């Protein structure tokens, strides 16, 4: 197992290189060059000043030199300094990622807890009214734009009914709270974002679970289990479920890119200080070091997520032997 992981990690190197190339290309080859922005902010800035800024950031060197410089710094984990507040990029990203990942983890747990039972019961009652009702419900979940859902919930629950806070992750009086009250406060703030984040994913998981389960229930070994005289309960929840659940194990790892991307919207709406909102703000402010750092780091997280998915699948399915 360890050898497999190491081998996979080594195999990631060309991909990582590719990621850096694409990131660099996207930023530097697109029509708007980093210094154009400076000009937009300050049209009166003279050519001389612009040239000095360009030199400061190394923007006057030929592209391939810029790339290798940047790559070199990346390897030393130096992602540069933010244009906006001159803080190290890695620090800014580092304090935001845990929040985003935390919210996403919570919503994945919610998705699994609710989605799996829905999928299983829909499969067992295949064709019945319950199944068809759930299918409709699932389609609604797929189609629902998260930002609309966020706004509606914000309006109803936050503004009109005042049940839950709608902004940030802590209240103003946070520091005065006891430990227990702090936990509740954070939980209340995160309820809506987690719910919104989970809503669409719920549809996906229950659909996936349902089709796995339906497929499994048609297999010969289910017939054998019944022929042996097992209780129907055991046939479904022991024999069928374990087989159907196997691929779901990979979901955790594979949903990372989707969740990180989706976090941009609800973090902006709910003013959560997470990775999504940081990226959005950096994009608006043309803060290139943060943008590039964000792209690279989230791509790496995606790769690790895929690796996690493969390893977890191999861990639970006895038929898979890692080569």
């Amino acid at each position, binding site marked *: 197992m360890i050898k497999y992981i190491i081998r996979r990690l080594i195999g990631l190197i060309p991909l990582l290189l590719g990621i850096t190339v694409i990131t660099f290309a996207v930023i530097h080859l697109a029509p708007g060059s980093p210094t154009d922005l400076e000009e937009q902010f300050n049209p009166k800035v003279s050519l001389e000043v612009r040239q000095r800024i360009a030199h400061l950031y190394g923007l006057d060197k030929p592209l391939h030199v810029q790339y290798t410089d940047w790559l070199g710094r990346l390897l030393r984990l130096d992602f540069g300094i933010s244009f906006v507040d001159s803080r190290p990029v890695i620090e800014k990203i580092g304090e935001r990622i845990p929040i985003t990942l935390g919210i996403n983890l919570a919503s994945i747990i919610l998705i699994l807890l609710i989605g799996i039972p829905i999928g299983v019961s829909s499969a067992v009652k295949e064709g019945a009214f319950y199944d068809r009702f759930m299918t409709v419900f699932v389609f609604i979940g797929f189609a629902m734009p998260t930002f609309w859902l966020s706004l509606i919930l914000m*309006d109803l629950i936050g503004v009109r009914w005042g049940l839950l806070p709608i902004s940030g992750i802590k209240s103003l009086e946070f520091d005065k709270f006891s430990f227990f009250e702090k936990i509740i406060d954070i939980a209340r703030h995160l309820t809506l974002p987690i719910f919104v984040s989970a809503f669409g994913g719920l549809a996906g998981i229950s659909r996936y679970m349902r089709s796995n389960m339906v497929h499994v229930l048609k297999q010969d070994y289910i017939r054998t289990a019944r022929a042996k005289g097992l209780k129907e309960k055991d046939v479904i929840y022991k024999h069928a479920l374990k087989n159907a659940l196997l691929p779901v194990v990979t979901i955790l790892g594979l949903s990372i890119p989707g969740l990180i991307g989706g976090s941009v919207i609800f973090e902006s709406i709910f003013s959560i200080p997470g990775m999504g909102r940081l990226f959005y703000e950096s994009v608006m402010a043309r803060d290139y070091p943060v943008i590039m750092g964000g792209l690279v780091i989230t791509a790496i997280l995606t790769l690790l997520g895929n690796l996690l998915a493969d390893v977890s699948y191999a861990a639970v399915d006895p038929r898979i032997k890692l080569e």
Partner: protein
Amino acid sequence: MNKLVFLGIIIVSFFAILAIFAPLIAPYDPGQIDIENVLTSPSKDHIFGTDSLGRDLFSRMVYGTRISLLVGLIAVGISAIIGILLGSIAGYYGRWVDVVIMRFVDIMLCFPTFFLILAVIALLEPSIINIMVIIGVTSWMGVARLIRAEILSLKERDFIYAERAIGASDARIISRHLIPNAIAPVLVSITLGIAAAILVESSLSFLGIGVQPPTPSWGNILSEGKSVMGAAWWMLLFPGMAIFVTVMGYNLLGEGLREKFLKT
């Protein structure tokens, strides 16, 4: 025919009609400002109410349909062309061409799509054309993989050998024989892709980096709705509803196509 698919077709056609015949359907000019009637709730004169500049919401939404559908169709068209091209080349020629192209696909798939789109949009001014191109250029990977898989299985079939035996060129084999046969799963992907593209465009417009006002887009109307939250529920309800129903329509259609192709 499946009831749900039928519903999908109705929804898609409905919005298509709205988009095509917008000038005939919209009662007001979408850009017509009316300071007297700022933020009025739905009434006889304005069935969806008015926005913060007194413009008729219903008319703006009808014209917004044009934007959404235009962006959806063209963005997906671009991604389909790129995807089909790269996927069929990779599948047909195999070996190192395949490896290089598929590695490229893998790398592109590492980035959260929305992040990539944001990053590029940041560098260009948000115009409708830029949005369409960017969405297209960041969502072709799925199509590429699908086409490649189909072509890999098709190219060993006898009728392809026959074509080669009579001296047909690669381009002809790919375009006349392989692609038409491989197209079925791609159609499903394209239909669902339109739904996704519409969602992305509205998200971008909502965040302020998509379609810019005064051009009406469902997304930027929602954005306005956010700033007047609590005071004008119609600004939140109708545009969101429109996006939701349209996306649902394309999803139903796509799922229906998928069921149909599975059976054949």
